[in-house]
């Protein structure tokens, strides 16, 4: 099955859009459970998060493997920048958590922009690898949208508006994926930097967002099992791919 288009940029656009649109699925539980999403299926959310964490860590490992073949220092500096970018957006997000939905939305958008960079870079390395990462981030977008949508409706927003905001927060991902892909393709010299950035951002995203959320939503052991076994499966699939 050919999952790519003749024009590589179109492939990037299509798959990052599919990944962002997966947020719609995350709205469904809130719609089914009503305002504020009372009695959210938290265990299920935790496992989805752990699954995404395993996929993303594996992607970071595979990117690091591909990235470290080149110059190490730019890659390492890029990785530090990627980790700092997630740290900065997350810290801002925490500080403004009590603030209006608009700020939370803006920072959420900034946040998914980092994920877009990772998708774009992975696409530049290999289109099929990029598609895989887009799917991994789609898995992460589902529970993320559930939580955001539940928080917005709990603050009194109507469900359609909350759902639209939850999906729109991921739109920046599409823009940044295409931009990062264009940059990496046009300026190969920048590739170690952006690869490093993607590795650092993915790892820190997992450690700052996905894992702590998972632990709160389900038991430590089941979370650790899902995340580590997923990591293994992904690394294996990549190793077996021609």
């Amino acid at each position, binding site marked *: 099955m050919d999952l790519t288009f003749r024009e590589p940029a179109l492939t990037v656009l299509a798959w990052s859009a599919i990944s962002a649109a997966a947020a719609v699925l995350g709205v469904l539980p809130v719609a089914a459970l009503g305002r504020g999403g009372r009695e959210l299926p938290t265990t299920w959310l935790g496992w989805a998060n752990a699954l995404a964490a395993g996929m993303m860590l594996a992607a970071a490992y595979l990117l690091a*493997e591909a990235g470290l073949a080149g110059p190490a220092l730019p890659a390492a500096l890029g*990785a530090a920048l990627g*980790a700092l970018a997630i*740290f900065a957006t*997350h810290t801002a997000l925490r500080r403004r958590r009590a603030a209006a939905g608009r700020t939370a939305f803006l920072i959420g958008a900034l946040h998914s922009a980092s994920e877009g960079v990772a998708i774009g870079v992975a696409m530049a390395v290999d289109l099929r690898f990029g598609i895989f990462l887009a799917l991994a981030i789609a898995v992460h977008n589902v529970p993320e949208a559930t939580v955001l949508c539940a928080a917005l409706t709990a603050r009194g927003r109507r469900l359609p508006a909350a759902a639209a905001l939850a999906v729109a927060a991921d739109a920046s991902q599409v823009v940044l994926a295409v931009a990062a892909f264009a940059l990496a393709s046009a300026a190969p010299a920048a590739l170690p930097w952006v690869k490093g950035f993607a590795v650092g951002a993915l790892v820190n995203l997992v450690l*700052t967002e996905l894992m702590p959320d998972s632990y709160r939503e389900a038991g430590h052991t089941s979370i650790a*099992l899902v995340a*580590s076994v997923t990591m293994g499966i992904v690394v*294996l699939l990549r190793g077996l791919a021609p």
Partner: protein
Amino acid sequence: MTTAAALAAAAPALVVFAYGLATALATGLGAVPFAFVRTISPRAVAVANAVAAGLMLGACFGLAAEGTRYGAWQTIAGANLGVLFILGTQRFLGRREIRFGATGGVEARRMVLMVVVMTVHSFAEGVAVGAAFGGGMELATVITIAIAVHNVPEGLAISAVLRPRGTSLAACAGWSVFSSLPQPLMAVPAFLFVEAFRPALPWGLGFAAGAMVFMVFVELLPEAYEDAPRPAIGLLASLTLVAMLLFQRAL
């Protein structure tokens, strides 16, 4: 050829034992801060956990890369066995803990459990050290340093439980080193096993990687998040991981 490499050619098992012993002794360093302070803040232990998590994840990347070079599915199968091993050990301890509790007080039980948990998980680390020697001297040095450094916060964690409950400083260091003694003891058979059965090498490397990843996810991270803000834990662990990758690359 370095001295260590020359020694490795002469008496491999002895060198593996010495490296394992060095990582065990490093655990005793964890007691050192208690010479200066009587209590250590939970936040400092959380920070140490985050650094350990970053180092171990970085080390796993190295183990996985080395293992998949020999065989991808064997490495991953080994990794799943490593996960199961830690899981089984935990379950086993969970059952025994109740019996320990019947004989001692709550405080005593906590202290015993701490030492037992740390000692048992050292078996996997010993296997990691031993298996790493099968992957070449460079990888072995990296993994040994990683585990030695990672042992210091473990010693710190053990001492943080024992010291405030009246254990002497020397005893804290002693129990810390004791908890890591399985490392030299397990490293030698793991190394010999890997040597004798080359095809088992990816299994061994995978086993160590799986055990370490699972330990990070099931023990270090949840504990770290409890006592320090998560952006700080995430950033620290991520930067440590990057530094570890750079370090492995440089060796």
